[in-house]
């Protein structure tokens, strides 16, 4: 006898919960017509950025590829004879079919070159289309970090910065001077 009442009550309560939703706003988003808000720090597609002067930020230090837990980054360092001592990647390849968007590469990057952006739409019919070369990764802007320019703070000479012209540097030592 008692159990009938319990069943009936549960039935009513359950129906009430359902009916209550009839008058609330639905949470379903009409993707792709409607876009969800993703915070700027959301970890999606990986890009290579440029420094404020418009040059490639990547100096091919291999730290991202070493940090990558799925080993999906491969690159080869090369030297640009025109831009003295300025290293750049000869090729830079990310296999997004392996990428887990963990952001370790971004954390490892000493020049803010590699950045994860809030774009996640990387569906392809063929896996090979998920292999991104440098041309596919490189964007024209600075990404999330606007002002950093590695070569301004590094000690090496480049085509547009002689020794001693970097940030917080003394002019080159005159070895032949005996002055204290």
């Amino acid at each position, binding site marked *: 006898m008692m159990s009938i009442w319990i069943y009936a009550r549960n039935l009513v309560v359950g129906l009430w919960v359902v009916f209550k939703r009839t008058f609330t706003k639905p949470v379903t988003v009409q993707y792709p017509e409607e876009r969800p808000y993703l915070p700027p720090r959301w970890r999606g597609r990986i890009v290579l950025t440029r420094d404020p002067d418009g040059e490639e930020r990547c100096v091919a230090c291999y730290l991202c590829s070493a940090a990558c837990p799925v080993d999906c980054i491969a690159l080869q360092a090369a030297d640009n004879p025109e831009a003295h001592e300025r290293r750049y990647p000869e090729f830079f390849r990310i296999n997004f079919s392996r990428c887990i968007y963990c952001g370790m590469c971004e954390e490892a990057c000493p*020049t803010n070159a590699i950045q994860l952006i809030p774009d996640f739409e990387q569906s392809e019919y063929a896996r090979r289309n998920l*292999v991104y070369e440098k041309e596919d990764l490189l964007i024209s802007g600075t990404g999330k970090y606007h002002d950093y320019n590695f070569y301004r703070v590094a000690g*090496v000479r480049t085509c547009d910065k002689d020794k001693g012209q970097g940030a917080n540097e003394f002019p*080159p*030592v005159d070895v032949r001077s005996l002055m204290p």
Partner: protein
Amino acid sequence: MAIIIVDNQSYPVDEKQNLLAACLGHGLNVPYFCWHPAMGSVGACRQCAVKQFKDDKDQSGRLVMSCMTPATNGTRISIDDPEAKAFRASVIEWLMVNHPHDCPVCDEGGECHLQDMTVMTGHVYRRSRFPKRTHRNQALGPFIRHEMNRCIQCYRCVRFYRDYAGGRDLNVFGAHDALYFGREQDGTLENEFSGNLVEVCPTGVFTDKTFFKHYTRKWDLQSAQSICPHCSLGCNTTVSERSGTLRRITNRFNSQVNGYFLCDRGRFGYEYVTSDHRIKRPRVRSGSDRTKPGTPEGVPKTLEFAADRLRQARGIVGIGSPRASLEANAALQALVGPQQFYQGIDESERRLLSTILNVLRTGSVPSASLHDAEQADAVLVLGPDLLNEAPRLALALLQSIRQQPMERVDELKIPQWDEAAVRNAVQNRRGPLFMAGHRQTWLHEYATDRYFAAPDDVARLGLAVAGIIGPDAPTISDIGSDVRDLAQRIAEALTHAQRPLIIAGTGSGSQATIEAAANVAWALHRQGKQTRLSFVLPEANSAGLALLGGGSLNDAFDAISEKKADTVIVLENDLYRRADRAKVDAFFDKAHTVMVLDSLEHRTTAYADVLFPAATGPESNGTFVNQEGRAQRFYQVFAQSGDIKESWRWLSDLARAISQDGESGSGVATWRNFDDAVSATAMVAPELARIREVAPSASFRLVGQKFPRQSERCSGRTSLLSHLTMHEPPPPVDQDSPMGFTMEGYRGPVPAPLIPQFWAPGWNSIQAVNTYQDEVGGPLRDEMPGVRLIEPVATNAPAWFTSIPRVFQPASRQWLLLPLSAVFGSDELSNRSPAIAERIAKPFLSLHPSDGARLNLENHSTIDLVLQGTTYSLAVHFEPSTPVGTGGLSLVPEVSGVRVPAWIDLFEAIKTERKRRAA
């Protein structure tokens, strides 16, 4: 043995060591910069501070530099003491005040001693906000890059370059905190050992310029043990590769051979492997017109074609090579039969090698390892130009001259590691080093006495020395008083020494100098000295080839011209380097089929009717026997691309192709993997039996696992090939060695030949080698330093060489042309490396000034010299050290085919000098 107490733990240590070495030997991490196991301590960097306590009641203690404190019994120290830690942290913070923010673009990054030590001391954040000091860099030639900003003033570079390697053109300039380590002005570093600066420098001031051009971090490199193929010393190297390209060579510690250092030819000569002239596909020429190039062909068709020709052959001549591995030569010998196997070297060289082999086999004096040479306390060099023929041995001799003054150091109770004090005590004293030969180099500045003469006179000096030392040794009566005095001085120095070393070689082509060296060594041995003999041989596997036996190249020529055979198989050998052009041309013309196995195109490969692409050293497994008679194994570093295969594998395939019809294969046809090759080679000669023990066999496993060639942090596994295929192909399988081309496998202590690179947690730089040794500077744990195949026999009556050459007499019109070997230029393989090619000097003829005047030549003029049918354009150098009546011809690639020594009428041979001068 002493007991030291470190942080309340007792450790047994060698009391001859300092505390730093003692701690490192027990795996206790004490940071350091200026100390180096081969160069001792100077206490300059203050980084290795530890706290020393008087006794167990002493609570306060005092800071000491562990590298400057002897490890005496009962020493009580603390590494973890907070004050010592703070001191070390502040030292590194000072060093980092001016260190640039370069790590991402610095080639040292990831294998930087400074990075390791910074992490070890715990210095994480830069507090200094002041500007950094900067320096201008210098262009230091094709080998080394210079970035002075990174310098931490540890003085290791100048200590190595000047004090250890005898260099003069690198120094420290400036004062106070603006010290500059470089040359007086831009220019190539002259010393033959400059490449070691890359490893000696704890940070990125000196980096490898050839590596820079195809840079990869250390953790991404796939590496294995290799043996340097560029001279006969057999230095151990670590060869590294990534994605199919050879990237660099680093030194590989071997306590018996090269220790911590390599020469520049060995370090920078590797790029022949990636040369544009590599042979990558088999080529076949089916017609008989040799002017037409062969056409590339598939492997099965090539083998079929070659097997067909070999089946029809009326006789096969197999020509081996002193630069091919023992296994490849043995494969050829097995294929063609021992009677038809020829060593591929000319008759005179073969005779010299067999004399040397006889001296070592039947004599009482053992050959010297490089380690023995460093320990020698008196040295006599009869003939060879060590700096150019065997540079690492010259470096060993620079250490040997410190041995005798060390006795005084021991008397003064100065520990040998205390470098500054040792130098102070030694001053300019040098142990006896006598050098006789026909060419002067900077090494002669370190010699007690030098003697420049023709090879016969050098041999006479040796025989005179032997006669003075051993009364029953044959001696010379007709000898000038100055030479007699010199011989007397040499004999005295050698008899006063404990561990004398006599060095001779094949370089000057003189049998007499080798015999004289043997006589001197045997005479010393009879005096009860711990004598050693060292012979400098022409190439990496000359000794191995001599052990295999076989006729000379001239015998091979005869076999073809006498129509005993009509088919030739040439193994990794450019015959044009070894015999007259006309002779080789005639040889090839008479041969119906010429088959060549080689890795690089040269004049001989152009003649090949069948050309097989052979693997180079880093692409193959093999054994070399060095000049000491030490067999050492080199391992394949990376899988060969395309059709390239090891020579022995080609020959084995060829043998199978021949025997396909009917009978089952025998001999070389049964070789399936490298272990088969080694086992079969070991059967060829009784002395080779022990080559199986050189390194672990292919079936060697630990915990059932193979050993990885790649590091634990090798990157890019899923993307390196993804532009070609998405399917991530499995790594190549290695059937020939216990190692794999992967990151997977056993990690832990392994026999030394299986160590891919020296690395330990916290020790990313090459200084990690300390962690592989039980005692710093001593042998590696489980070291397999190669096997000495030839040991002396105990005999009391030496079989003295009695033939005494006559005094060298300059002829009126004829000059004895002698070879002048060049460290950069005389080695066939390293010449093909761009960096080495940049250092090759123009060919020259050196003459005594009086001879030059007689020939009416001017110094530094250019002449055209006709030698053995070819005209060479040469510069003339007047050298007072060139013996009168002889000329020196530099053996650089342009004159590589010339047979020297030879008597030449220079009046006749010099063609156009006068014309040119007139113009």
